[in-house]
């Protein structure tokens, strides 16, 4: 059995129909567990006070904002190379979820930054590249809506996705490249000295798992919707011609 079989809409619908309730349940369970654990059962940070609790939303949302774009990049490349419609529709389906994650990351970052840095916003490399990523998301969604032909829209948005990937990866590694700005380095790292303390780390991991599962569930739901709408469009077109 090949992975490309899932590019068949019927196979995709049948498989995701079975998987979706499990992924949705996992997302709900992990999000509720992680957020309740982090919010109610972790101590304040000795420097940041209770604002450290924002980490359970800010870090997972920022991770998913970048990873959503990475997923869209892979799906776009599959569309450009192999012309599988499901992959183009999956990329389209992921964009509104990705822009929501980016918005949460930007908003919680600004709220967190105000008491910690003394400002809502700074033209820091990571913040700026994240803002540009947000604008790319909006442009990507607008381009899908602006082009009537679905295949042409998929081609154009795929190219936009490749260009925008520069900013998606820049927002991840901007701190390492420039080594300046207000934003600190990665909260999760292989280097134990850079990591957040264990008491915050474990609920954070659960929250990240919750955000990943939520992203997967929402993208599956939205891809299934896009497949149905495409089928509906084909039936209505035949009705008009017939």
């Amino acid at each position, binding site marked *: 059995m090949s992975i490309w079989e899932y590019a068949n809409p019927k196979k995709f619908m049948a498989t995701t129909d079975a998987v979706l309730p499990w992924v949705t349940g996992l997302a709900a369970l992990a999000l509720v567990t992680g957020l309740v654990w982090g*919010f109610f059962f972790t101590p304040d940070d000795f420097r940041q006070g*209770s604002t450290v609790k924002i980490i359970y939303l800010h870090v997972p949302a920022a991770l998913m904002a970048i990873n959503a774009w990475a997923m869209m990049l892979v799906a776009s490349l599959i569309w450009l190379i192999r012309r599988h419609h499901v992959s183009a529709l999956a990329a389209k389906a992921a964009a509104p979820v990705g822009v929501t994650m980016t918005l949460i990351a930007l908003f919680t970052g600004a709220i967190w930054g105000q008491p910690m840095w003394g400002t809502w916003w700074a033209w820091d490399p990571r913040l700026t590249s994240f803002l540009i990523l947000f604008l790319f998301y909006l442009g990507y969604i607008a381009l899908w809506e602006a082009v009537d032909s679905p295949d042409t829209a998929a081609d154009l948005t795929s190219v936009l996705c490749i260009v925008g990937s520069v900013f998606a990866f820049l927002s991840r590694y901007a701190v390492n490249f420039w080594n300046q700005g207000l934003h600190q380095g990665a909260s999760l790292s292989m280097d134990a000295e850079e990591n957040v303390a264990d008491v915050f780390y474990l609920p954070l991991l659960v929250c990240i798992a919750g955000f990943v599962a939520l992203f997967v569930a929402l993208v599956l739901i939205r891809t299934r919707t896009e497949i149905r709408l495409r089928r509906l469009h084909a039936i209505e077109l035949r009705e008009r011609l017939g």
Partner: protein
Amino acid sequence: MMLDLGKYAGTVLSAYGVSLALLAVIALASWRGAVRSRARLAEAEARKAARNG
């Protein structure tokens, strides 16, 4: 359960409030889109089946 968030209560609660609201909006919009598309497609397929006898 009451939690003392100290002087940053407004900051923390607004971060949670807005984030959870945004997550609820995208989840609700995705679910509504799925329900509507399923209904519209079922209707169109019923029309198609009726036409084809």
